[in-house]
């Protein structure tokens, strides 16, 4: 489709709103009745399973407002700062970047014409797509990307994502204040961006697909400083119309958007407040178009009811989530320093039962990496439920009488249910568990502190589809610190560390995956975690809402949805 034609189409539509909509509606209704008739005809002639499948191939309609709800306010719409799964879909409305994922999780150019990585894996070169504009009308230059990435590294920005970009050459000197700019960021041409890393790193490409790397205009950031989050200016298809903090968000079309995909929706409205039960009630009364835009999708207590309701069930989509639920076992605190004890805890846990407690919304985990992750090892056997073997291993380790321990967890419904069931399982093998529920802030304080929490229950969600996102972050001994440590098992195995380092700096994709596979095998064998399960991702939407299927990394792509009335 011709870009100019689309733009003029949108322009005309905007100028002639109602009448055109009416005409379009009239046409659509005529076409739809024709479609139904022909579909019926085709059905009668045999060979088509569902009428719905045929009707679904209608043209998407322009216009309409998508109504959503969030339990708590988005923290920030500044791509350098926002790091919650809830805010990313909205960042994506406002901002775009150089790389995106396709339906098969391959990285493809987005607002770039093309890109390549040097053979040694140290230099990334991007050529920008021409004619891309910010929502203030200015055209994007490569220099803007240099500014964006440097901003993330700047300590004054307090970006939670600066860790992902520290691998850029000169980043450390810049952060320590010894250099005015980051050496490794260069824009030799207005449309060429070159990034040099200090060590080769094939996973860096994924960083460029994270919202941290979505481009921001320098002059707007410098104008608003800390208030930039209230005045988002990006290259995405939508702009922020209204943000009543804690009350609602409203997005409208970006008049300067020049991307390939058409944005059908006229506006997106997000109500802030209420919990998921409330949102489901509103959804059932037709006040929302998607029930819950959190990964859980549907509150646990209502799940069975939704599944039994044929109308609601049709709007429910499901796919495996790239996440793993686990219990980290603090390998520095006895008796969990004993590998046999840890293996025993794995055998003692009935994972199928846990999944049933969550209405069968997952599959048991045999390792660290979740199924959608490249490098997922289907051959890993993991630990089945075997309490006899658990008791045996405990006795061998000298804990025939069992021992006392504590499991920390967040105090949401899912964690609480799981923790209670696990406590029961473990008591069967003589392990007495004290449950420690806590609000998120306190939970993190406790479990990321060295020699503090013996066991911590929680999920780990993928940031990007590379094993390093799990293995390096969670199991590398070199990353152990006294406070704020993400290696919550405080696991330190020299062999594993070596494998992880080698994999991270390898330039060969196959070799990387092989090394990661080896590392994972050792990790599973040493059991610094109890590997629980991989959850499913859900989305419950109204029958009139159409759009792309669920995506493991970008589950909600609002800018590609449309409303059929």
């Amino acid at each position, binding site marked *: 489709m011709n870009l100019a034609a689309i733009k003029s189409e949108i322009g005309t539509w905007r100028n002639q709103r109602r009448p055109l909509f009416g005409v379009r509606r009239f046409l659509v209704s005529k076409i739809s009745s024709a479609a139904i008739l022909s579909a019926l005809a085709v059905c009668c002639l045999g060979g088509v399973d569902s009428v719905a499948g045929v009707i679904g191939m209608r043209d998407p309609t322009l216009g309409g407002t998508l109504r959503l709800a969030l339990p708590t306010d988005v*923290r920030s719409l500044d791509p350098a700062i926002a790091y919650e799964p809830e805010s990313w879909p909205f960042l994506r409305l406002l901002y775009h970047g150089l790389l995106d994922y396709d339906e098969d999780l391959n990285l493809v150019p987005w607002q770039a014409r093309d890109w390549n990585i040097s053979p040694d894996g140290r230099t990334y070169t991007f050529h920008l797509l021409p004619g891309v504009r910010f929502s203030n009308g200015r055209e994007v230059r490569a220099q803007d990307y240099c500014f964006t990435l440097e901003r993330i590294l700047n300590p004054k920005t307090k970006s939670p994502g*600066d860790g992902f970009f520290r691998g850029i050459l000169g980043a450390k000197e810049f952060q320590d204040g010894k250099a005015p700019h980051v050496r490794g960021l260069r824009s030799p041409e207005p449309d060429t961006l070159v990034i040099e890393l200090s060590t080769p790193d094939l996973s860096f490409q994924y960083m460029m697909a994270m919202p941290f790397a979505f481009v921001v205009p320098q002059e707007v950031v410098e104008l608003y400083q800390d208030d930039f989050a209230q005045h988002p200016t990006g290259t995405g298809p939508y702009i922020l119309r209204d943000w009543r903090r804690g009350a609602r968000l409203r997005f409208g079309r970006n008049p300067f958007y020049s991307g390939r995909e058409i944005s059908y929706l006229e506006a997106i409205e997000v109500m*802030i407040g209420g919990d998921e039960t409330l949102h489901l009630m*509103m959804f059932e009364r037709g006040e929302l178009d998607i029930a819950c835009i959190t990964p859980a999708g549907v509150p646990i207590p209502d799940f069975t009811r939704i599944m039994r309701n044929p109308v609601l069930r049709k709007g429910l989509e499901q796919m495996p989530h790239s996440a793993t639920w686990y219990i980290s076992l603090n390998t520095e605190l006895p008796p969990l320093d004993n590998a046999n004890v840890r293996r025993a805890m794995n055998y003692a846990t009935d994972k199928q039962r846990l999944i049933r407690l969550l209405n069968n919304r997952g599959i048991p985990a045999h390792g660290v990496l979740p199924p959608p992750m490249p490098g997922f090892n289907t051959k890993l056997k993991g630990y089945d439920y075997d309490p006899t073997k658990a008791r045996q291993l405990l006795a061998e380790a000298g804990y025939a009488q069992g021992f006392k321990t504590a499991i920390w967890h967040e105090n949401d419904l899912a964690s609480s249910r799981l923790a209670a069931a696990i406590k029961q399982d473990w008591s069967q093998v003589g392990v007495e568990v004290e449950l420690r529920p806590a609000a998120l802030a306190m939970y993190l*304080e406790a479990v990321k502190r060295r020699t503090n929490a013996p066991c911590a229950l929680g999920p780990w969600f993928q940031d990007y589809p590379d094993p390093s996102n799990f293995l390096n972050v969670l199991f590398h001994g070199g990353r152990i610190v006294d*406070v704020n440590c993400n290696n919550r098992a405080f696991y330190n195995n020299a062999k594993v560390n070596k494998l992880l380092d080698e994999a991270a700096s390898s330039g060969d994709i196959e070799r990387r995956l092989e090394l990661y596979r080896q590392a994972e095998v050792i990790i599973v064998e040493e059991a610094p975690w109890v590997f629980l399960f991989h959850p499913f991702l859900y989305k419950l939407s109204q029958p009139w809402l159409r759009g792309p299927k669920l995506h493991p990394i970008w589950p909600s792509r609002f800018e590609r949805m449309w409303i059929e009335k």
Partner: protein
Amino acid sequence: MNVTLTRLSSRLLWSVLVLLGTSVITFFVAHAVPADPARTMAGAKADAETIRRIRHEMHFDEPRVQQYGRYLWGLAHGDLGKSYVTNQRVTDAILTRLPATLALSTMAVVFWMLLAVPVGVLTAKFRDSKFDRTVLVLGTIGLSLPAFWLGRMLQYALAYRAGYFPVAGFRGWRHLLLPALTLVILFAGYYARLIHSSMVEVLSSDYVRMARAKGLSEIAVLFRHGLRNALIPVITVLGMDVAGLLGGVIFTENVFALPGIGTLALQSVFNLDVPIIMGTVLFSAAMVVAANLGVDFLYHWVDPRVKRD
């Protein structure tokens, strides 16, 4: 007039001390919770290095008292700080939430007084009648109901099942009706009873007899001579309740997802967002203090017998 001024200034001084005391207690209690605000700002997955930098930028590595001093300095300049979570100015956060709470409170107070005043007056006039006894029972039930439960029940029955009201949110005044109804059920019975007791006392007074003897209609006797006096003690109670409402009707706002001060306060506690916690607590305390002052002065205006001293 000078007497009033000195009274006013001494009361103001006390109010400031009260607020200061509140700020000290809240500050140190909030910081006593073992959680790192830098991590709240950084998010669950940030690494140690990031968090260390944030701690330094935000002066969290300074001693507590010094941090409190900074806060007080800011307070003196009208700066309540910024939210750790959203980076929004605390004053802005509170001011943007105020309309919802204010609208809900106003609607609720108006409706429950419109209900309580005639009911209170009439049950006093027709004391011990069936009407009076029914109102007593209903009122006692009403004020004993837990706010959260009542709100949910009304929401479930009238919004979700029957569809008479929107379920939640705040898009227009219609969204305030059900939350206001919750508050009315909770408060109207209590106020009707208050007004009833006060009216009963007033109706047995000599000046009411005098009013009747002058030939005034029963309406004028009840509502002009009677109610005017009966409301005097009720005003103190109302003032305090209004202050409490403005500080944030936490349960009701939460159930109906209204973006008011109550939800702000609740969220800030879960997130351990200390500046917002401080802000909402201080705001609440300020409302109570203001209500106290206001009621005091209202008393003088309303009851001429009260001496100004």
